[in-house]
């Protein structure tokens, strides 16, 4: 039942319109607009808040790469996000790595863990795939709870932000913001290229009709594993960056509820759209941030927005826009 639901939703979220030759130019304009927006944003909004949005947007985009373009619903992305943030925090604090190497170390952890877990999980499909990823991420959670280097429920605190390449002092929020914005743009652009490459086309074919892709001679499992590792690597990049931004890594990042965040952000923003997760992350993080004074009502408001999105904007906010203007976003 749920298996079928995942499969059909996977089929239903295909590109709303056929991509014309004008799409590339249109996307280039959006990227340019995004760069300008990211450049001026810290003068209008609080930089630390923006960095949080960008980390979560990258995380949600990585998740969306897997679900939106590969039709694979992973329910354990917190494992890669969280472990990467632990590795990044640990290498920066205890091993004294500079921030760029700490982030790379965390990202590598995301990739390695993704390769290991992906090789196991892609053997099954639909709900079984989701459950295996969830089970493996729970293992990571309990490992983090017990392991010495993670600091248990206290987490790793007081991670130094350091200086990037030995010149740029990241303790200043605005410097760090531009670094995070650059990381985000690189990550997003990488995903954009993956999606629009021949590899991405094959992935979409597999998503829409796996038996047909097999009959055409594609080694489906290798493609899926490759996409899975790309997604976990980018999730790792997001987690590693977050550890440097907030100067801490904690159990929250590996908890199963963290795996739900990108699902929510992606669905609100628009599944299978390049820019949707950014919108979704902005909406969800703003609510968590600006409604914090409402206490328990945050979750209620979040629930209402989610229900509204599902009922009114089936394709998510940006998916709805894409359908209206009849262009892929």
């Amino acid at each position, binding site marked *: 039942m749920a298996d079928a639901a995942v499969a059909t939703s996977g089929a239903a979220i295909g590109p709303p319109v056929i991509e014309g030759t004008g799409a590339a130019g249109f996307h280039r304009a959006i990227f340019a607009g995004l760069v300008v927006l990211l450049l001026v944003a810290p003068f209008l909004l*609080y930089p*630390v*808040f923006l960095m*949080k949005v960008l980390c979560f947007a990258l995380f949600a985009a990585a998740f969306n790469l897997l679900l939106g373009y590969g039709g694979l619903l992973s329910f354990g992305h917190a494992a890669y996000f969280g472990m990467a943030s632990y590795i990044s925090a640990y290498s920066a604090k205890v091993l004294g790595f500079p921030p760029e190497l700490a982030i790379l170390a965390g990202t590598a952890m995301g990739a390695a863990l993704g390769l290991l877990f992906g090789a196991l999980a892609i053997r099954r499909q639909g709900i079984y795939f989701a459950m295996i990823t969830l089970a493996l991420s729970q293992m990571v959670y309990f490992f983090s*709870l*017990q392991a010495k280097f993670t*600091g*248990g*429920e*206290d*987490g790793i*605190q*007081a991670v130094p932000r350091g200086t990037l390449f030995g010149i740029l002092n990241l303790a200043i*929020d605005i410097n760090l913001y531009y670094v995070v914005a650059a990381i985000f743009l690189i990550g997003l652009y990488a995903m954009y290229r993956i999606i629009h490459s021949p590899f991405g086309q094959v992935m979409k074919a597999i998503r829409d009709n796996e038996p047909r892709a097999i009959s055409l001679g594609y080694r489906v499992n290798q493609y899926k594993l490759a996409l899975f590792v790309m997604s976990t690597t980018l999730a790792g990049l997001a987690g590693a960056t*977050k550890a440097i931004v*907030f*100067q*801490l890594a*904690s*159990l*929250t*990042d590996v908890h199963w509820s963290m795996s739900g965040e990108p699902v929510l952000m992606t669905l609100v923003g628009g599944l299978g759209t390049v820019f949707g997760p950014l919108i979704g992350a902005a909406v969800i993080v703003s609510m*968590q*941030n600006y409604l*914090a*004074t*409402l*206490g*328990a*009502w*945050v*979750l209620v408001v979040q629930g209402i927005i989610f229900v509204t999105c599902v009922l009114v904007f089936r394709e998510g906010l940006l998916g709805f826009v894409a359908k209206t203007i009849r262009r892929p976003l």
Partner: protein
Amino acid sequence: MVTMRGLSVATALWAVSLGAAQAQVAVKLGVLNDRSGVYSDIGGEGSEIAARMAVEDFKASEKGVTATVVAADHQNKPDVGSNIARQWYDQDGVDVILDVPTSSVALAINQITREKNKIFLNSGAATSDLTGAQCSPNTIHWAYDTVQLANVTGGAMVKRGGNTWFFLTADYAFGHALERDTSAVVKKNGGQVVGSVKTPFPSNDFSSFLLQAQASKAKVIGLANAGGDTINSIKQASEFGITQGGQSLAALLMFVNDVKALGLRTAQGLVFSETFYWDENDATREWSKRFLAKAGRMPNMTNAGTYSSVIHYLKAVAAEKSKDPAKVMAWMKANPTDDILFGKGSVRADGRKMHDALLLEVKKPEESKGEWDLLKILAKVPAEQAFRPMAEGNCPLVAKS
């Protein structure tokens, strides 16, 4: 002419004196705690109410201090908490952050507060690292900590004859630390630990572990766990009739609100430690009834700690006529604390607030005279015995001197 000049001088003098009287120091207090999750009953809105009561009771505006209170929910997530704290300090002009339960969030705020040079008065978190390895010149840990809980519950129980112990330990760092600290106290006081069992965390079924504990014939069963695990293990212990069978149950982290939630029938005979109980004396009773009218429940040590810390902070600001963190912290550490809830006390150089701690026992249903008449005070442990000596904490601030 002369009279005119005299008059103008007088006016000028009067204006100057008026100006001085009106030079108000404006401070902003931020209550940051869990308002939606598992700890919302312990801190939550209650601590915000306590902070507001402190501002009212202190009559801050008459003493040249304008104090405003803001509050937010950290959802027990360190990143959410640290984001709010940064925003409060950087943008919203908050001077002091209060309460902050959940150790991981508290340690994060501890760090940010030090970096931004503001003040952090913690009453909600348990970790003794706040005045130990991670102590900070900008932090005071007010209400309680893990070492004090172990000292009071462990030490006082042994002195009362509970000299053989069996531990139910939640299998993660916090549980292990509680067991280790409490075992050390039990042994130091001449008691004996006859065994322990590690329980998976979190767990819903404690029956086999409780049977082991029962079979060990230990006089005291120590619950080295927290939150849902504590509640579950107490409920199941009651089903096995453990306290009726002559063994005592000692919880190492427990609040009066948990007892209320469990009910006397289930929790009776349970022993634990808090540093405040509403029914302690006339002053605490009077204050707690006012709190009850506002919050709909009785205060615990976290709420009381928030109140007490705000009072002492406002005294410091009024005395220094400044909210400069270094001056205010110096005043707070140099002068004894005195308020209606904790009585006389002091703040140690490592940031530990010193006051007496209570060993409490849950009453039997027939002993209780009212809805909130839940506990009896078995012993009052002086601050010096309850809290960890400064030299043992390895706080870098005091190691140098």
